[in-house]
């Protein structure tokens, strides 16, 4: 991006989103704390805080991880995706309270530095029953910390999108660590099966959503285009593509979006430079291809973001014969101007 950075680019939608996060969190914390206080009057403040924050964070983590596959399954979930980072940072802040209080409570005021104590008190790394589960939570917290501090777009640009995306994919490792932290920790203490049932239901739901979304993508990618000539492949008919919209084709392992706008067809790489969003599911707005995930824009004829932005995607050749659309999967350098294919009146009929 080339525009000046703001801490948060506030708009009405973001404000609604954050108020909802706030409302839901307060509601949950209040429910948990008040019920514990009523039904468990011998409670201690620290334990209730540690438990209220940990359970809330695990719930938010499940919501966060389900947003990706949900939007792939149904586009209507996109408003959840757009501000997902706010949800992530919120979760980190909550889990930081849990982690800090746990280290304070369980490891401070002793004969050892609390962080050293974390790794040297219980050293049964080879035992499931005695496994030092707190270390698992600590590493998950570190991953969430790295994700939270790099959630501003400044980091996306300065760490490079590839490194940034890789770092943020570690959320799945963190999730695994969290599940193990729960299973090897509190679940070995609590006797009520509710805890293990909730944890397993959560994991099962997430895995199922990812599998459903994943198989749909794989199906699209595995379509084989048989008709080929001079490097071009026949991909569809002109009327398969709506005006100002695109269709995505995966040819020779390249995901390409073919857009129809202003009486022409243009082909650009399907992968948005911002966070790998699917450009083929976007729309032409004010003459620009607009990514459905975060609204990044590119000009259809050259794949360049309009100034002052600087993102560029690859472009491709596309041609029309009769009503058939032919696509050449050979990519031009990012930002290369291509003429596109003119749709004549005859073709369009």
């Amino acid at each position, binding site marked *: 991006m080339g525009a000046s950075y703001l801490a948060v680019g506030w708009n009405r939608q973001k404000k609604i989103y954050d108020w909802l996060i706030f409302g839901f969190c307060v509601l*949950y914390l209040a429910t948990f704390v008040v019920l514990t206080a009523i039904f468990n009057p011998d409670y201690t403040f620290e334990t209730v805080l540690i438990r209220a924050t940990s359970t809330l964070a695990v719930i938010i983590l499940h919501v966060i991880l389900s947003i990706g596959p949900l939007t792939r399954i149904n586009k209507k979930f996109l408003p959840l995706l757009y501000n997902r980072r706010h949800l992530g940072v919120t979760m980190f802040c909550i889990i930081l309270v849990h982690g800090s209080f746990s280290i304070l409570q369980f490891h401070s005021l002793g004969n050892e530095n609390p962080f050293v104590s974390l790794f040297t008190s219980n050293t049964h790394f080879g035992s499931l029953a005695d496994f030092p589960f707190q270390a698992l939570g600590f590493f998950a917290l570190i991953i969430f910390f790295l994700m939270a501090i790099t959630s501003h777009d400044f980091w996306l640009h300065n760490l490079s999108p590839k490194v940034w995306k890789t770092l943020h994919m570690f959320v799945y490792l963190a999730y695994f660590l969290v599940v193990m932290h729960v299973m090897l920790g509190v679940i070995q203490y609590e006797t009520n099966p509710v805890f293990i049932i909730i944890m397993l239901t959560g994991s099962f739901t997430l895995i199922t959503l990812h599998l459903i979304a994943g198989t749909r993508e794989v199906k699209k990618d595995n379509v084989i285009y048989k008709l080929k000539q001079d490097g071009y492949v026949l991909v569809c008919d002109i009327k398969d593509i709506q005006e100002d919209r695109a269709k995505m084709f995966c040819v020779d392992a390249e995901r390409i979006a073919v857009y129809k706008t202003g009486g022409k067809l243009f082909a650009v790489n399907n992968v948005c430079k911002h966070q790998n969003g699917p450009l083929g599911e976007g729309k032409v707005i004010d003459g620009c291809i607009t990514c459905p995930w975060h609204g990044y824009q590119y000009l259809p004829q050259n794949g360049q973001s309009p100034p002052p932005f600087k993102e560029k995607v690859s472009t491709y050749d596309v041609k029309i014969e009769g009503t058939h659309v032919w696509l050449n999967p050979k990519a031009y350098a990012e930002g290369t101007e291509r003429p596109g294919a003119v749709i004549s009146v005859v073709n369009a009929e």
Partner: protein
Amino acid sequence: MNNEEFYIGWMGEAPKSFVTWIRKYLIVLLPVIIVLGVLLALSQKKFGTGTFEFGTLTEVKGIYFNKPVPNIKVVDGKNIFGNESYITVPLIGFGKHGADGVIADLEKEKNISFEGKEITLKGTLLYNDGKLLMQVDGNDKPLVNVSGANINSVGLQNTKELGIIEVKGEIVDPKCFFGVMKPGEGKPHKDCAIRCILGGIPPVLKVTDEKGNQNYYLIVGANGEKMNEAVQDYVATPVEINARAVAYGDWIVLYVHPNGLQRYSYIQQHFGNKTASCGVACLK
């Protein structure tokens, strides 16, 4: 999808169909969050009834003894035979520390040994399940008074040999268990219990009998030496102890035999051989 309906996050308003959909999602999410909050809150194990009188200092007068663990014996009244009865109040330090350091500092300061002397200490009480302990913190100026002369403590030193016993239970740190933390036992508290015991708080074996009643034993080595470091790998996990039991008034002390502390697995004890033979059979 309608061609006109396209969602862009940086716009002020989302298209209507998206708004309606998200509203539906939130209407589903709302009860889910509440139900989870209710379920998780109500499914927690009951918290213990221990009390730590945080912020309240109490003066306690009694006779100090360094063995088997630093403690003071406080006159509690008279028993049915007309003899004075005592309760033993084990002493512990601030945070995750034993009381040895504080007591040693005070003895050095006064240049006398407290052993067998009447002493008044100011500290924070913690108690549960019939056991009373006191935290003495150097910052609280814990020493109120110490008598110059030794008290005739023969009656106080009365011990009763209970013979060799074998008991199964869990090693806890008495400070957390009897008041400071909830839970002060089990897996979630394991690291803390280890840190407390390594810091000098005397390890205690908690034994639950078939009726669910709990008995507590102080653990020391065969010759009365401290076992704090020796128990590190056995804290907050089922263990079996083979020891000479000696009653010191209201506390029983276990003098653990060499190799008398072992891990104990209920599963292995009851199903171990069957599982192993079944496993072998399955493999074959």
